[in-house]
């Protein structure tokens, strides 16, 4: 596709010692430039494995097949060194748990500098200026530059992670449940921040979540994953308002409705199995 930035074709992920067990079963997904695509699904549906495959960060006990085309380049064929040059520069990632992703014994300023220095050779003064700019963009007071991660709240830590991720102006940002560990008000702030950054830096975003409420807030396109497969994909309006696949319908039914108009219906897996044939 012409306006696509990333194309995942026939991606399969399986354990090294059991290639018949497919954790991700032959999925294909296309990310449009400048859009946010959400992957939604329960735990164990393969959404994080898909993200890690794009980053070429799968555990050494897992293998993958298929192609991942980023700006016309198949990432699967690149050497480790070549991938490392892309990772963090052109494609960046933020994770669910900001506390475990940050190093507890280094200041946040140092860690952001480190993220920049890997890819760019800047003078010390330039580097400091860049870090201050980044902190400002993500909404952390500059005087916190020498703070350690444990001195920050969960929301602030996630802001630091975002600062690191956007430090080299990536073209694609992968966010793996970045707000699941945060409470609702902070979640709303982080989602707003990410939407703003996406527009400002013309980034494409791959956003992973299990919460359809979040999908509604942030997504342009949606892919619903179930047991390693994409069972439905389309624009956010189509998937949320006119879901076609029985699993999408079932998953939408367990989202609590803040208006109290509909009942909560846990997924009836045996009924789902029958509906899916």
């Amino acid at each position: 596709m012409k306006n696509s930035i990333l194309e995942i074709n026939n991606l399969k992920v399986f354990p090294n010692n059991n290639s018949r067990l497919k954790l991700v079963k032959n999925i294909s997904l296309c990310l449009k430039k400048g859009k946010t695509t959400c992957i939604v699904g329960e735990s164990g549906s393969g959404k994080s494995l898909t993200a890690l495959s794009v980053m070429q960060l799968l555990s050494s006990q897992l293998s993958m097949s298929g192609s991942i085309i980023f700006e016309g380049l198949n990432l699967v064929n690149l050497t480790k060194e070549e991938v490392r040059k892309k990772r963090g520069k052109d494609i960046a990632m933020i994770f669910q748990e900001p506390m475990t992703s940050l190093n507890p014994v280094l200041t946040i300023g140092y860690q952001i500098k480190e993220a920049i220095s890997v890819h760019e050779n800047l003078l010390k003064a330039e580097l400091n200026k860049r870090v201050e700019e980044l902190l400002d963009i993500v909404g952390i007071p500059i005087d916190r530059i020498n703070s350690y991660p444990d001195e920050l709240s969960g929301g602030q830590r996630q802001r630091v992670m975002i600062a690191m991720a956007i430090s080299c102006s990536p073209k694609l940002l992968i966010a793996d449940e970045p707000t699941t560990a945060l409470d609702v008000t902070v979640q709303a702030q982080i989602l707003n921040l990410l939407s703003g950054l996406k527009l400002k830096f013309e980034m494409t975003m791959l956003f992973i979540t299990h919460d359809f409420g979040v999908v509604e807030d942030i997504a342009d396109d949606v892919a619903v994953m179930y047991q390693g497969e994409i069972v439905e994909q389309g624009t956010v309006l189509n998937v949320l308002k006119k879901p076609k696949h029985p699993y999408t319908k079932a998953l939408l039914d367990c989202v609590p409705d803040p208006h109290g108009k509909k009942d909560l219906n846990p997924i009836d897996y045996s009924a789902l199995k029958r509906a899916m044939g």
Partner: protein
Amino acid sequence: MEILLEAKNLSKEYVKTTGFFSRTSSSIKALDNLSINIKKGITLAVVGESGSGKSTLAKSLIRLVEIDKGSITFKKRNMRTISGGELKAIRKNIQMIFQDPYASLNPRMKIINIMEEPLKIHDIGNSETQYSKILSMIKRVGLGEGDLLKYPHQFSGGQRQRIGIARALILEPELVICDEPVSALDVSVQAQIIQLLKSLQKEFGLTYLFITHDLRIVRHIADEVIVMKDGKLIEQGKTDIIFRSPKTKYTKELLASIPGNLLKRK
């Protein structure tokens, strides 16, 4: 309606010492002159951001945290002055379900031992009646007899939360304090656990104090809501009314941050 628990003017301050030889100190008011009533048979939700004092409130009600000022009365008995056997007897009546089902079950104990511990502590029944009690409870929460001999790591997050619920209910408490019981679970499992909690409430006539930051869940489970911020009570009332016509600016803000609202506002 009968009032099960009444807490009046609760205050609790945490003092943090920093600096050389801990000479400077700062304090945080986790509870600031807060009063609540819990009516029998209802679900009272406590909502607020992290750091608002919700968990301190929960812990202070069963005296896992000692408050600085105020009074707590459970079934007309003063919780603050009792001790020893009397406190133990009351604690049997007030049980807790915790947020993180990974951290709240002892990884080295089998499920049967986890379930039997509270019965032993409170000296209820003999080993035979204890076993039949445990069996019927574990079945009630949707697990089987075969699961009793497994260890916590063999279960998923949702199953572990079911075990946490079974452990809390085995003593037949009247008040169950649920501290963010579904926050760590994904939506499909969350819906199952909420339904389970609702049906158990009906069956055993339970009263819930339900702590959460997710207002969408409040709408589904709570009869009444209190909103907390910085240890203070900001607003309280019936769930419907709070959602339909919130009075304070803060409650409005909380309602606005419910995910899935942005699109509607656009």
